[in-house]
């Protein structure tokens, strides 16, 4: 008997696709992450506003923690910048030849902006 289609998530992750593959994985995770974040946030606010439930407060406490802010901020920043890259390359297919280079370029935008923001968030969290 042949083995069935042989790709577990783990096997897939081990594939050495490099930058573009990881950019896609992060785009997917960040997109889903944002959706979850926005969805819960809206739901919680709704429950609080309509039924005076505590859920909103609990969730907001988590959301406002500095660690969570870093994650959310990264997700949004990465998803937005990478999304823009995807859109640009899709609208000018000739550029798709340089996808690998484009992913590098993208990090040149993300890293400094994210670094600065993280710095601000952290100093604010610990510096008062």
């Amino acid at each position, binding site marked *: *008997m*042949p*083995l*069935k*289609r*042989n*790709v577990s998530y783990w*096997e*897939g992750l*081990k*594939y*050495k*696709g*490099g930058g*573009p*593959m990881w950019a*896609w994985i992060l785009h997917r995770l960040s997109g889903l992450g944002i959706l979850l974040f926005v969805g819960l946030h809206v739901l919680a606010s709704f429950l609080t506003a309509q039924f005076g439930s505590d859920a909103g407060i609990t969730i907001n406490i988590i959301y406002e923690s500095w660690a969570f802010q870093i994650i959310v901020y990264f997700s949004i920043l990465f998803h937005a910048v990478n999304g823009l890259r*995807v859109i640009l*390359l*899709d609208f000018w*297919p*000739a550029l*798709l*030849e340089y*996808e*690998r280079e484009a992913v590098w370029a993208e990090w040149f935008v993300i890293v400094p902006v994210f670094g600065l923001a993280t710095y601000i968030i952290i100093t604010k969290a610990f510096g008062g």
Partner: protein
Amino acid sequence: MQVTLKVYRYNPEKDKKPHYDTFTLEADPTERVLDLMERIKGLQDGTLTFRRSCAHGVCGSDAMRINGVNRLACKTLVQDVGKKITVEPILGLPVIKDMIVDMEPFFENYRSVMPYFVNNDPPPNGERLQSPEERERFDDTTKCILCAACTTSCPSFWANGKYVGPSAIVNAHRFIFDSRDQAAKERLEILAGQFGVYRCRTIFNCTLACPREIQITKAIGEIKEAIATGNLD
């Protein structure tokens, strides 16, 4: 120099689960990984099983994962991958034995995109004319050898084998942009469907894996553009 080759093994008649075997042998840095596998099969372990034919990258038999990426064993030199080499079958197709996977699903996807020339006008006495520029338009995608290195490197295909995959799209591209062909519309309609080009998330693994250096992601992008604009030039 001494090279160790770690090989994925699965024999359906003996094994329940795949395992790895390690072989050590002397090799030249300029030898092909395929040469090493041939030598192992000839002198160390006759049961090692893989496909091969041309041995110089034109027949598409021996796509496999070498040190984690899809390559042709006959186009990968030892010096390209180092002294520690791991070979495993390509992903996303059923493994029949060692490096041999069932290619049927791959070819089924290929056949589903009308990968053949269609022109129903009566042919002229001589050739149909085509300018060098028109010929150049689809040159890149004529190079495909159907090795499946691209399709089996694509996470979208791993997720769902119904996705026709980059290789089939490349072969559709070859005809869609051929100025002599008349079935571009039918092909594009297939590709605009549920398992067509929109399963491609421009992950780019395919382009990096293609041993013929075809700009696959670009070809897919051109097809998306053609679907959206109707322009085939």
